[in-house]
């Protein structure tokens, strides 16, 4: 390939692999926040309190229609203005977790709405509490149809982690930038980052499909 330097490639690969680990940790932590918070946002939209439902709905819409990179800046810079200092990692995780919780809440909502109406009626006829109805009956059934969406957003969050580089989280993109400006060579680091992303996200998408099938089978839904 054009002017590609293999010696430089081997030299920087260990650093990139280390950063890949950071990227995965960032994606994992952000996803963990999103999975839990997303459920809260989804359930909050099913409460009988109209005002709460409305507000949460608008917040979800707002988060989904504005750029993640701007949200990252917002979380990182607005804290200090009011005397709260957050380090890059914490603000990054909050921003990316919040962003994806909005997406996941939509996935859960779709999943919950896909559960047959008769299931609710059956629960009511057994005088089950709302909590039991959700956690024992509805959510287990809402899970399989949600899995595809959840998996897509896991890959999505992974691919969005490079945005964390803008506030100095030492993930892949940040490391590639650093290597590039130290050596005045951008061809290898940027290309390798692309290759690493491909090498992880393509098999991940396949694995998620396999996992989805496995869960469906496990729950006897197929």
């Amino acid at each position, binding site marked *: 390939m*054009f*002017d590609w330097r293999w010696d430089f490639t081997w030299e920087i690969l260990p650093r990139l692999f280390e950063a890949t680990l950071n990227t995965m940790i960032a994606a994992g932590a952000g996803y963990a926040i999103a999975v839990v918070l997303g459920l809260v946002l989804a359930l909050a939209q099913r409460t009988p309190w109209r005002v709460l439902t409305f507000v949460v709905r608008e917040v979800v*819409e*707002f988060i*989904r*229609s*504005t*750029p*993640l*990179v*701007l*949200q990252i*800046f*917002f979380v990182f*810079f*607005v804290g*200090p*203005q*009011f005397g709260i200092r957050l380090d890059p990692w914490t603000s990054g995780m909050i921003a990316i977790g919040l962003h994806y919780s909005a997406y996941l809440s939509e996935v859960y909502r779709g999943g919950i709405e896909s559960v047959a109406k008769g299931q609710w009626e059956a629960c009511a006829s057994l005088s089950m509490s709302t909590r039991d109805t959700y956690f024992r009956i509805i959510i287990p059934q809402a899970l399989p149809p949600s899995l595809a969406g959840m998996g897509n957003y896991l890959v999505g969050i992974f*691919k*969005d*982690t*490079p*945005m964390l*580089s*803008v506030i100095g989280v030492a993930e892949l*993109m940040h490391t*590639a930038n650093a290597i*590039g400006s130290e050596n005045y060579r*951008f*061809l290898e680091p*940027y*290309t390798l*980052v*692309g290759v690493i*992303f*491909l090498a992880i*996200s*393509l098999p991940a*998408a396949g694995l998620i499909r396999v996992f989805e099938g496995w869960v469906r089978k496990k729950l006897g839904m197929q």
Partner: protein
Amino acid sequence: MSYWEFLSEYGPRLIDGTLVTAAQFFLAAALAIVIALIAGLMKLSPYLPVRAPAVVYIEVFRGTSLLVQLYWIFFVLPLFGVSFDKFTAGFVAVGMNLGAYGAELVRGGIQSVPKGQWEAAYSLSMSPLRRMWRIILPQALLNMLPPWGNLLIELLKGTALVALISVADLMFEARQINGSTYLSAQTFGSALIIYYIFARLIITPFMRWLERVMRRKLGRA
């Protein structure tokens, strides 16, 4: 400084940035639509040499990050003798990235048209090109409008990244203002609100309107 004072001082710069964002959005959207149509149709081809480039393109651009693609196009591509100014690099990267997602929508939309429509068009001896253009695409277009609405919002959000190669868009202006004033809540908050307005009060209603118009035109009102 009150918020109103802030707005009267920095509002014009935010508006300038918004106009650049709007330009990036429209150019990237146009590019994405063209690429999506071409790549989506190519992926449906029965011939491997036609299909393969589309599959590779779609997988590469969906499998990596927009930011990586943007940097690659802006910083690495010049090494291969292809250089864009930052403004062009910006919307080309965003358009190519979202075009890859759009290609999957085009493919899905075309596949969602019932097989009977192909058969009926064939039974009238229509050529493959005519079948696609006159019969299949109009129906596929209507089917894929709702997901395109979401995709265009993702595209708008994607344009915020061009600030990172110094295109003076809304995101860029907000960062500059924040850097000199440290009024982070006001600057980033205003920018967030402008993006929200752009997405929910312009893109979404426009797509809904387009869907209604198409529905009427296609006789499914």
